[in-house]
């Protein structure tokens, strides 16, 4: 992952943008900045407003309130065809009645570029997306992946300030997805164009983007690099949306000293956690509703005998299903409360456990430092 370019001012500035459709609020007070030359992802579950935000940037919707600045200049007044921003649509939207070359050259025609230059640039663009020589083909003769590249070439040939991509990898199967992902990263670094991608797939966002903005219910939850979001999620929602976590409800939080907290959590009993009192939790015991302690499955170990280490959280349960995933396996552990948690275990371990029957008593354990105390939803 490369560092975002150290630009002084962001290339795209979204400030307090809200969008309402009648009584329903699609976006509420979203503000974020995109730096020049980075790959920025808008990530969130369906209905979170990410596509609406993308369309607002492209110009197909106008914000109910808020500002949109590109290179410091107001964008809202400009209609979509006047913005130096181009979009690759989810359905690719390749014109079925024009050849590949005419599709790619269409935007240049709109700029009144002369015919010779159009030919040169179109050929260049097709080479860039590895469709060289296919200029005379018609779209219905191409595969889905090829059509996507036509859409990419068509947008990039105009040298936009910003390229928007709506769910670029969703329609592809696993192998193609990996290949396309690499191509996109490669394309972006070669052209230097700033990419803004919309996706609901956190794995995609983490693999592709330099920075990610997590949206939910029309609000911005957190912005940061994939590592920051993964290791330092701001609330339980983000923690569970990026990767997986197991969350346990918190009933009491008490401050032991400046760096230690006593936390009482469902099914885990009393714990001593490093950290300071998070905003929103009450002093003196009663926990604010909605706080959780979370742990990631890859931090959980499974053993047959109770582990002796102090400083580790231990829960008892019975062995459930072991799902083979190739390099590793996922073991299900059923707790006394009836819920199940999962642990990531290696191949050898999985084989060893497979010998035991379902229902075999086991112990799940993890280091107390790997528990994070988080509000359900921040802000």
């Amino acid at each position, binding site marked *: 992952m490369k560092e975002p370019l150290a630009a002084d001012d962001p290339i795209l500035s979204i400030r307090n943008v809200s969008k309402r459709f009648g009584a329903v609020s699609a976006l509420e007070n979203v503000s974020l900045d995109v730096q020049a030359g980075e790959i920025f992802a808008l990530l969130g579950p369906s209905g979170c407003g990410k596509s609406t935000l993308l369309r607002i940037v*492209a*110009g*197909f919707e106008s914000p109910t309130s808020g500002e949109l600045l590109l290179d410091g200049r107001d964008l809202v007044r400009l*209609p*979509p*065809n*006047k913005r130096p*921003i*181009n*979009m690759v*649509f*989810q*359905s690719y*939207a*390749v*014109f*079925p*009645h024009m050849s590949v070359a005419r599709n790619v050259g*269409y*935007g240049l025609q*709109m*700029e009144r570029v002369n015919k010779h230059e159009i030919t040169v640039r179109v050929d260049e663009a097709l080479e860039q997306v590895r469709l060289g020589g296919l200029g005379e083909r*018609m779209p*219905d*003769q191409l595969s889905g992946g090829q059509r996507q590249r036509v*859409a990419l070439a*068509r*947008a990039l040939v*105009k040298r936009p300030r910003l390229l928007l991509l709506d769910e670029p990898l969703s329609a592809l199967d696993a192998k193609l997805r990996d290949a396309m992902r690499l191509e996109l990263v490669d394309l972006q670094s070669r052209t230097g164009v700033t990419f803004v991608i919309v996706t609901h797939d956190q794995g995609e966002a983490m693999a592709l983007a330099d920075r990610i903005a997590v949206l939910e219910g029309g609000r911005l939850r957190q912005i940061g690099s994939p590592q920051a979001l993964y290791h330092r999620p701001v609330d339980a929602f983000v923690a569970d949306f990026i990767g997986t976590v197991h969350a346990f409800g918190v009933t009491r939080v008490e401050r032991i000293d400046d760096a230690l907290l006593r936390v009482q959590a469902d099914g885990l009993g009393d714990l001593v956690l490093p950290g300071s009192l998070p905003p929103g939790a009450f002093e003196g015991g009663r926990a604010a509703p909605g706080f959780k302690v979370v742990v990631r499955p890859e931090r959980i170990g499974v053993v047959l005998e109770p582990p002796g280490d102090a400083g580790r959280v231990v829960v008892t349960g019975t062995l459930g299903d072991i799902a083979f995933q190739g390099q590793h396996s996922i073991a299900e552990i059923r707790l006394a409360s009836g819920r199940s948690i999962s642990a990531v275990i290696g191949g050898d371990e999985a084989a060893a456990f497979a010998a035991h029957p379902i229902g075999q008593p086991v112990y799940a354990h993890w280091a107390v430092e790997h528990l994070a105390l988080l509000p359900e939803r921040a802000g």
Partner: protein
Amino acid sequence: MAEGRQAAARRPLVFAAFALPTLGWLLAFFLVPLGIIWLYSVGENVSLTRVETTWTLSNYARILEPEILELALRSLRIAALATLVCLVIGFPMALVIATASPAAKPWLLLAIMLPFWTNLLIRTYALLNILGTRGRLNEALGWLHARLQGTLELLGLDHPGLMSEPFRPFTFLGTETGVVFGIVYVSLPFAILPLYSALERMDKSLLEASLDLGAGQLTTFRRVLLPLAMPGVVTAAIITFIPALGQFLTPDLLGRGQVDMIANVIERQFKGANDWPYGSAISMILLYATFILLALRAFADARRSAARDAR
């Protein structure tokens, strides 16, 4: 869904139960009558009531006479003009319906179809009051004329010769204009439907992509919307043109005998002149024209999909 899942040969009796009534009816009351016209068209009157098929082409030859030829040309001209006007008015109307909210769409469709669900005679008759010299259209035009005159006077721009004369009503009845007006009136809803159907199915993201790439509204309309809607336009043109060509009532009522079209000549042969072979021949010409148009369209469709499959 699940169309054609039963091979006819497997259940011949059931198949026959369904097929025989349909095919029988078509044979008896459609193909046979058409066959008779065809035979008559190459026949002659041997007596007041009997026609014998002598395989003569004399009936067809009569169509080439200058009078009839001029009439045929006039019919083509009127039908073509009416079709054009229907497309020009119908396209924006279809566009409005296709892009309306889902709640409004059925009501808008109903609004344009309702006039269509009245008897053809009533609709055409209603135009008599509108198009007459003292009819509502002339009344409206006269009112506009007076307003315009008044405004010019107010601005001091009235010169003799320029709008200074009183309004002279136009003559619509008995002219080609009136007949075209009438045909457009009865055909418009019918032309809007296929246009609406084609526009409704259009992928909106294609239009957005065009805008995104820098095209203005007009350019997007010209280079993306219209080409992609073209099959619908062609369908609308054909299903408007064919009935327009064979119009009988409109030229009869609105043309006042001055603007006869093909169908009027046919009618005369059967209701007056009793020259059935000749009337049959002209009918056959109309049928041939219809079949040619449909065949051309089917041919173009087949070629388009074959070319697509071949790639």
